[in-house]
């Protein structure tokens, strides 16, 4: 397995990006462009939009989800190499992994008990 295995992927990136950019460009030449004031307003079901910075704040819950995601995603990444060589590690690998997962499950149970996974209420 050499780097050449990634050549088709590199070419696919180039082809699909060119396709996306080119279709936006071609469309901008073909499509009409008649700008009006009302058309440029953000869509709010027909009423005149409230003038405020739309990107200001959103519930802190979402940050919590992002942090929990990072913990579990890193765990997943650790599990993959272990899984691939598992047949060679045998019992040693099993014990190591059970210790690892049990530690994480303890943290998981803690988060659950403290209500970190609750969404409503």
């Amino acid at each position, binding site marked *: 397995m050499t780097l050449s295995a990634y050549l*088709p992927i590199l070419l696919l990136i180039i082809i*699909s990006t060119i396709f996306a950019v080119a279709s936006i460009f071609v469309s901008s030449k073909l499509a*009409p462009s008649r700008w009006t004031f009302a058309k440029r307003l953000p*869509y709010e079901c027909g009423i005149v939009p409230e003038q405020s910075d739309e990107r200001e704040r959103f519930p802190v819950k979402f940050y919590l989800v992002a942090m929990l995601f990072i913990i579990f995603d890193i765990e997943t*990444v650790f599990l*993959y190499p272990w*899984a691939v060589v598992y*047949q060679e590690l045998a019992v040693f690998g*099993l014990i190591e992994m059970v210790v690892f997962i049990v530690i994480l499950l303890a943290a*998981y149970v803690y988060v659950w008990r403290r209500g970190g996974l609750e969404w409503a209420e």
Partner: protein
Amino acid sequence: MSAILDFIGVGFIVALVKALVVFAALLLTTILVVWFERKVIADMQSRVGPSRWGPFGLLQTLADGIKLFFKEDFRPQGADKWAYALAPVLAMVPAILGFAVVPVGGVLGFGDTKVGLVGSDLNVGILYFLAMGSLNVYGIVLAGWASGSKYPLLGGIRSTAQLISYETSLGLSLVPIALVAGSLSTVQIVQAQAGTVGNVTFFDGIPILEQVSSLFKFIPNWFIWSQWPAFAIFFISGIAETNRAPFDLPEAESELVAGYHTEYSGIRFALFFLGEYVHVVLISAMAVTLFFGGWDGPIFPFLSWLWPLIWFTLKTIAFVYLFVWLRATMPRLRYDRLMWLGWKRLIPAALLWIMVTAVVNTAGIDRGVRLAVFGALFLLVLGFVIRGDPRQKTAVSPQRRVSSGTA
């Protein structure tokens, strides 16, 4: 001609042809899948569906695509110029890239050159697939944030939380596959599923189970038989990853207009659309590759190279049909139920299933112990998933809560 070949190399030509074929096939597939979905849903709702352009309305999607080319593509005044332009490209490209590791057939020979029918057989195939799935989030976040409008922002945030929650269980559900196959390469995973279940010796010597398992020796040795809990977790997470019903909260029409792509029109909207449908096909193709033997199937003497492709296509169509069927059947989940399912059911179930798979596949442990652990943990996982949410009983009856004074 041979001079040109020598100059840039056969490897480059093969890579270029592969990339072009994957890309062209995906565009064609998307056109057919959109038509397929509209036709199947129309059939389920006793309508005719698209019928004007081409035979059976086959060219309807193409007509819609051409129409979108001629539609005005404007940017709302609050939008961030570059992020707004980048988002549709970022939503489409990773979905197409994910297909590079899907093997659609064995090895073809052109003279001396042997070409595997896969974009690229990476030794980290599954990780690559998961990585491309994660990149999809960026397109949606940027679209929601850059539009400078309320509905896209809400849809984008919702979608991000949903995608990262289900990405975790998606990643965990594929660990047992890597463990059983001993490889992350999609081609090797398909090869590990060749043959029939006849060589399974796990239940030998146990009175009833042995007889039962001997009855099924003709069945292909696909991972779905031993790994169906992993498949269930994978497929549920996969539907959530593609933002499809019943997990289509990011674009819940009744609440958020169209979610993160509310402000997009014309060809940029078409790119989002393309990305979503390619993703549906990608999840279906990965389900086939990892759990249903990929291109594995009976091969008949005439046109022997074509059969793997046919089996792969038929299996993938079956899964795309399942996606459409679910959309026509299931109501949308409530947001807290969605988070509950992802964090409190799928993730612990996936972790426990990894342990079950590990114990069962350890050579050094006594088989009786392995069978006992398998049985006990299997029942635990099953009970855990089936039990449901204890809060649901109070949640569905608000009247009782009002009368007891807790509301």
